[in-house]
């Protein structure tokens, strides 16, 4: 952002203030995440930077909290991680199937009552989570699904489908419907057309919606707190309990793993977005 040489002084000052503000905001956004990283390697039990860490003394750093996370006898992280992955994977599959089908229907120009149906399908994203939590809890309790994996998976499908619907609808908005008609005129049946023509073209949208659904489920805590029993504990629930009771460095070790996971997800989402834009012929 070089300034042209004729810029007046006061605009020059203004420009530097602007850059300073932006730097501060970016720092504010990203810096908190990097606090966790070094502290999770702390050799001591306190959540502050020890003198040794400030002097970069190698003895002040250790992997003991990571070992505690994996091997600790009282630690529920193993069970929580297993549950989290199982629930998130099934919730993602369910969201993708239901959401993609709905998006295909919504993108058809023959769809009646498009506005109101779209609003209904997206509503779980807009309604505050605490209200969704209460409502879903009432349903699951009545259906006898409270404190079961099935119940939590269903709840996360409810919360995850809006993301799939939105991303797939967006992908389909640039979709050229004549290719499916071409396939049909060449004798392909609708299922074959979908699998061979439509799906490969909208796949980036489907996967990125699926990533959103996965993250939503993996990170969701409000509804799980209402639904989960001891057996269904997930990583966010364990973190919630841990943060409420006592901030232990083991939580930071878990948090570091989660940040690495979210970085991986971010990278794949970005790659998918670019691929999808290329496929839809949007050049930037």
């Amino acid at each position, binding site marked *: 952002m070089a300034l042209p040489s004729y810029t007046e002084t006061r605009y020059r000052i203004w420009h530097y203030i602007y850059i300073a503000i932006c730097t501060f905001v970016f720092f504010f956004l990203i810096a908190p995440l990097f606090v966790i990283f070094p502290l999770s390697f702390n050799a001591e039990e306190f959540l502050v930077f020890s003198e040794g860490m400030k002097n970069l003394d190698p003895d002040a750093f250790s992997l003991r909290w990571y070992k505690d996370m994996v091997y600790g006898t009282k630690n529920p992280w193993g069970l929580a991680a297993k549950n989290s992955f199982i629930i998130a994977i099934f919730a993602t599959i369910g969201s993708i199937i239901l959401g993609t089908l709905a998006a295909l229907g919504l993108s058809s120009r023959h769809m009646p009552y498009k506005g109101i149906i779209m609003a209904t399908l997206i509503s779980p994203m807009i309604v505050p989570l*605490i209200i969704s939590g209460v409502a879903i809890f009432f349903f699951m309790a009545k259906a006898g699904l409270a404190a079961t994996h099935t119940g939590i998976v269903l709840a996360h499908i409810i919360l995850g489908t809006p993301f799939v619907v939105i991303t797939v609808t967006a992908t389909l908005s640039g979709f050229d419907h004549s290719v499916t008609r071409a396939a049909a005129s060449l004798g392909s049946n609708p299922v074959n057309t979908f699998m061979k023509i439509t799906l490969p073209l909208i796949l980036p949208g489907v996967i990125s919606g699926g990533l959103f659904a996965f993250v939503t489920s993996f990170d969701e805590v409000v509804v799980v707190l209402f639904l989960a029993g001891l057996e269904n504990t997930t990583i966010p629930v364990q973190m919630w309990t841990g943060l409420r009771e006592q901030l232990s460095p083991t939580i930071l070790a878990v948090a570091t793993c989660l940040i690495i996971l979210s970085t991986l997800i971010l990278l794949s989402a970005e790659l998918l977005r670019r691929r999808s834009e290329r496929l839809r012929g949007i050049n930037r």
Partner: protein
Amino acid sequence: MSSETKKILTTDGIPLEVSLKKAEKKNKIKAFLLVAPLLLFLIITYIFPIGDMFMRSVDDRMVTNMLPKTFKAMEKWENLDELPPEEVYRGFYEDYKLLAENQQHGKLGQRLNKEKNGFNTITKKLFRQIKRKKIDESASLKEQINKLHKRWRNVEYWQAIKRTAPPYTMAKYLKGMDMYFDVDGSIAQVKEDRRIHRILWLRTLEIAFFVTLFCFVMGYPIAHLLATLPMKYSNLLMICVLLPFWTSLLVRTASWMILLQQQGLVNDFFVMIGLVADNNRPEMMYNKVGTYVAMTQILLPFMVLPLYSVMKTISPSLMRAGKSLGGTPFVAFMKVYFPLTIPGIGAGCLLCFILAIGYYITPALVGGASGTLISNQIAFHMKTTLDWSFASAMGLMLLSGVLVIYWIYNKLVGVDNIKLG
């Protein structure tokens, strides 16, 4: 002559118009069938339960079902300032005897006690008399019950029973606004020092408003920077916005808990630059400050992303045109650039506000007592007091507020224009 024009026929002899309509209808059904699974699923597991919440919040059928004969007899009770007639006493006695046999009388006593203090004692007294079979059913029940306790001779207690007759009540909603039904059925205010809910509603609005404002003030410049920088730099900076967006909410809250604690880095920094004394570090967590700081950072991406997607579409030549026509950079910005970004501002602010107003996790962890919001109160009643009907009522009050904002959002930007990532 139009009626004489020949109808166009398809090859199988059906008029084209009919054939097209048929195809159209078929397509409609096809599209609808694709949406149907998700729609049905959501209606059963989500929309109906929200309706169920409403039923729970107004449901007051317990007493109605417990005292059917009493309420039937009360229809004939005309002068409400005098004690009810014998039939009412008889109806109440019969209902109560049945409840006593089924061990349900305690529940009734508690419920009526909520309506008017002192009911628990006198219903227990009646129960003991019934158990000892001291009441002569052939004689006047009015006289016998009145003799039991002076409160039974007080008409206010009978009025209280009558007030519980309707199967539905708005009482929980009034409670959510610190109001209640007075003895004569009018709406009254709770005593000033006990108006906790109103404080919570106002605090929720206040925090949502200021968090949205902070997000806007901080989000606008960086969205502008991201939209105007060359692609290769902005992609890198975009990661600063997207990484927090994808990172677990609890991780981000945890990092703020570490930063804001009394021995945390923020306080260390303040001590270092000499803003505060080392032995007098301010408490920045477990109060409103913590809630504001953490929520602003967490919701900031939701402001930046819609702003960015709008600013990206504004051609830089517009600003150059404004300047070349004699506007200073400031005037060009205010008159040309800023008005063009208003749709993005609307989208970002409403999104932030909707999310902030229903926030639960972060305030519960860093908010302490003075930073908790209405959602925390709902969770408290769901999990601790188990007053589910009250939790439902407050949830629906919150929901109706959010729906109004959602409706405005829909009018301004349209829900199908929401962009992610």
